[in-house]
């Protein structure tokens, strides 16, 4: 059994990813602690956005509620560590990570059956509902401590600066997410998901097991998002429902893909880079109007470049090729 359907492209992407990760891994040695913190935000955003893409970008089922998995991942880890006092930090972290990913995978599986039958807009809004329910339940049920907050274990090894440690941890997780996304994209599963995005009825007619594929992609997406959530929670050190079930997570992951290029893997990464730079560095001082500027950016983006930067490049490529064919004639 061959691993990838389009093997050469897959191995090129993997090579580029590994090289890129290596470059990014060296960055903290050059940057100030503030720069490293901005870097963390970028890596977190990129990882979450690529995890979203596995379902949203490939199959066209846009989830408006991925914060559900960030938050539920974070709280699973935090509450588990609370229940396991006295464990060494390293193994407590690993247990929490695995448990959070499994639990979110199960959660996704449980909600996938009813809501992945819905199409387009209904699925998007149902996911927004799911993330709100999770937030409200964790906030309002006392034993889940969403309102009160939970402390997480300190897992930073001695002698490493915390901001660097978390930068690397988030980078490693993002590397895993990107590799999984590449593997999905170039496998049979990936081609099936693309067919679903293009035309679900035709896909079914061609023999694509649409329901099963959507569920698999959803579960993968949820587990990867939860993994990011667990690391993010440790980075915060102390979490409340408000700090992990963040509405802007729901929105931003989509915006990054729209900006960079929907359905690609590099698109959301570039989008995350640009948005992080613009909001944190260029507009870092304008906290009052932060939301206004984000909204304006989204509006301009959708109106001016609905297919993102990749769409602009793609149109250019098509036009060039057409011109070449005409000159050949």
């Amino acid at each position, binding site marked *: 059994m061959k691993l990838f359907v389009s093997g050469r492209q897959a191995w090129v992407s993997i090579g580029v990813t590994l090289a890129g990760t290596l470059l990014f891994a060296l960055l903290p040695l050059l940057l100030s602690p503030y720069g490293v913190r901005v870097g963390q935000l970028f890596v977190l955003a990129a990882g979450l956005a690529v995890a979203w893409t596995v379902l949203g970008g490939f199959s066209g089922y*846009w989830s408006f509620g991925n914060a559900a998995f960030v938050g539920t991942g974070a709280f699973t880890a935090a509450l588990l560590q609370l229940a396991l006092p006295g464990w060494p930090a390293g193994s407590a972290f690993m247990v929490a990570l695995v448990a959070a990913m499994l639990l979110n995978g199960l959660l996704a599986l449980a*909600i996938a059956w*009813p*809501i992945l*039958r*819905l*199409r*387009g*807009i*209904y699925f*998007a*809004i*149902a996911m*927004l*509902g*799911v993330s*709100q*329910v999770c937030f*409200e*339940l964790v*906030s*309002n049920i006392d034993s889940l401590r969403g309102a009160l907050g939970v402390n997480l274990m300190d897992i930073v090894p001695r002698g490493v600066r915390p901001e660097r440690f978390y930068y690397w941890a988030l980078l490693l997780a993002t590397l895993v997410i990107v590799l999984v996304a590449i593997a999905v994209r170039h496998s049979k599963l990936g081609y099936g998901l693309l067919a679903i995005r293009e035309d679900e009825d035709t896909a079914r007619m061609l023999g694509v097991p649409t329901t099963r594929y959507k569920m698999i992609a959803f579960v993968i997406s949820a587990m990867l998002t939860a993994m990011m959530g667990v690391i993010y929670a440790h980075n915060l050190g102390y979490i409340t429902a408000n700090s992990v079930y963040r*509405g802007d997570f729901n*929105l931003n992951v*989509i*915006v990054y893909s*729209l900006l960079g290029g929907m359905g690609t893997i590099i698109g959301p990464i570039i989008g995350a880079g640009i948005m992080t730079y613009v909001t944190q560095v260029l507009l870092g001082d304008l906290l*009052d*109007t*932060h*939301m*206004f500027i*984000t*909204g*304006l*950016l*989204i*509006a301009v983006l*959708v*109106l001016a470049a*609905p*297919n993102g930067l990749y769409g602009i490049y793609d149109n250019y490529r098509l036009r060039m090729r057409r011109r070449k064919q005409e000159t050949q004639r």
Partner: protein
Amino acid sequence: MTLQTLVDGLVLGGLFSLSAVGFSLLFGVLGVVNLAHGAFVLIGGYAAWTLLDRFGIDPLLALPLIMLGMFCLGYAFQRTVIQWATKRASLLASMLLTFGFALMIRNALVLIYSPDFKSVTPAYAFDSLSFGEVTVGLTRVAALVVSVVLLALLAAMLRYTSLGRTIRATAQQEQAAALCGVNIRHVFALTAGVSAAFAGAAGVAIGLVMPFSPPDETLWTINAFVVVTLGGIGSPAGALVGGLILGVINTATAQLVGAAFPNAMMFLLLVLMLVVRPAGLLGNSFKGSR
């Protein structure tokens, strides 16, 4: 559940219905999910607050004025922004676009009015009517009356006027309507105008009954979506049914389960409803769903 809870639930339900009907109309006719709808509702509320606070104009007198203003806003919004987006990008992208506008409006409201809660309190705000053991504040009565009257007017407008017939025809067969000489863009923009006008009216009524602040816009948008999902898309009757059910469930949950749970219950209901009957109780009055 006491009678008082039921009455409170119905008043709240009237507000839900009124705030959702414009959203529902736009969704049914244009297929556009306007995530800025809740922000439009709040603009209405803040307009009523400003008119009362600065100029002493009673909110019920200001209502037609606010609706007219919001109508113009909605018309312009459709003609410029949404039309452009639906033409060039997907419906999902247009949904994201309205989300962008929601963020901008929310931020602008915070800057203008501060993030604190405001409420519209005319002189009669503290009077109330009693029917036996049930007591209802006068403003609540006013809010309920405004909701029901406006919904009835909208239903009559859609049913009997030529504008209403044009809107319904366009919703069902866009191309056929265009071939019959209907200016589709104009009709769509009129629909968006009506939608925004009713959002503004809902804002006024909400302001009479409860305090509001800029971040509430998300809640009112989602409320509208839940109402539409419950009742059915595109019709005032669907909005009324959905809104009243939601209102009663809301107050009942607060009383029976706990004050913190109405929202969770509402979203749970939304998800359940989408699963069981995505077209809503009354179905889509314009086209098939899914």
